[in-house]
């Protein structure tokens, strides 16, 4: 079975996520401290991990683009950031809901985990205006890659800053030795994380396929419309292109 197949991956994503959510409500026990509200953890944390890892993947793709100059890596980096920002929106909303239920506030401004994630998210939101403010596509791709690499460096810093910070309202589930997850919660969490990772990959592939199709359609349109002009007795499109390129 080829798991890279565009037909298998979406189904695998749906099955894994459904299984994960079923485990959340029918298998994982309620948290002794927070009770039922802790079920948001299985959605919120995998979303956050996938969004942050996605930003780092984009940084690696941007490095490959800067090294080799192949524009396909720039497109991949763009799409990785795009999907990670969408997941980032979900992280902020689900986190706000959890905060409201647990702390009585939608957002706690002196909590480093929340603020540093918000900063990273807003930093990546500036990627779009930066990218589209540059008209020359070559420069646009290069500057966007430099941005992706620089912003990518903030992601591990975000993790480190959170661990070093002293205000600890936000729970550190994976860092504390005495409050680690029980096995049933771990299994559920890992299945949800796998599902979310697959979802990220599926969305990236859909987005890349859509971009590729639009690019091919554009080329086809230029070729056909150019031909149309050629039949009418004028110059055909590629020559016109060549003329433009050399002018």
């Amino acid at each position, binding site marked *: 079975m080829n798991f890279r197949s565009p037909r298998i991956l979406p189904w695998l994503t749906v099955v894994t996520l459904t299984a994960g959510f079923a485990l959340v409500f029918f298998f994982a026990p309620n948290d002794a401290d927070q009770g039922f509200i802790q079920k948001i953890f299985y959605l919120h944390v995998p979303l956050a991990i996938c969004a942050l890892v996605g930003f780092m993947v984009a940084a690696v793709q941007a490095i490959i683009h800067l090294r080799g100059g192949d524009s396909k890596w720039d497109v991949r980096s763009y799409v990785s950031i795009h999907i990670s920002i969408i997941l980032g929106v*979900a992280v902020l*909303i689900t986190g706000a809901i959890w905060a409201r239920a647990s702390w009585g506030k939608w957002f706690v401004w002196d909590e480093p985990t929340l603020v540093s994630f918000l900063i990273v998210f807003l930093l990546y939101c500036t990627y779009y205006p930066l990218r589209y403010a540059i008209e020359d*596509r*070559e420069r646009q791709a290069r500057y966007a890659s430099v941005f992706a690499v620089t912003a990518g460096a903030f992601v591990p810093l975000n993790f480190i800053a959170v661990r070093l910070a002293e205000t600890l309202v936000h729970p550190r589930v994976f860092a504390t030795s005495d409050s680690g997850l029980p096995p049933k919660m771990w299994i559920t969490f890992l299945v949800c994380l796998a599902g979310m990772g697959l979802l990220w990959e599926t969305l990236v592939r859909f987005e890349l396929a859509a*971009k590729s199709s639009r*690019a091919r359609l554009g080329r*086809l*349109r230029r070729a056909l419309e150019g031909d149309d002009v050629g039949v009418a007795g004028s110059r055909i499109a590629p020559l016109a292109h060549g003329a433009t*390129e050399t002018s």
Partner: protein
Amino acid sequence: MPALPLDEAGKYVAGAYVVFLALLLIYVAIMATRLQRIDRELAELAELAERRDDRSVRDPDGADAGGERPANDPGTPGREAEDVPGGDLRRSSRQEVS
């Protein structure tokens, strides 16, 4: 931190999962709209190609003028490099620079 009662916590948990599903549905809807646009463009291009074929059947001389067409052929080696996502970006950049 005291645990919220189930009826109270349930609303928040449901809210979080519904938000996630809603975001996913919005994304799928946007993708569906894009797919429709691609489909429409494809239909337009098919029509354009059909018209061109009709014209070349009616006017064989015009078709001969299209003898320069190999340069236009998507299979031409020079164009293969652009057959990647974003290939058109590079191409349009060249146009813009010039």
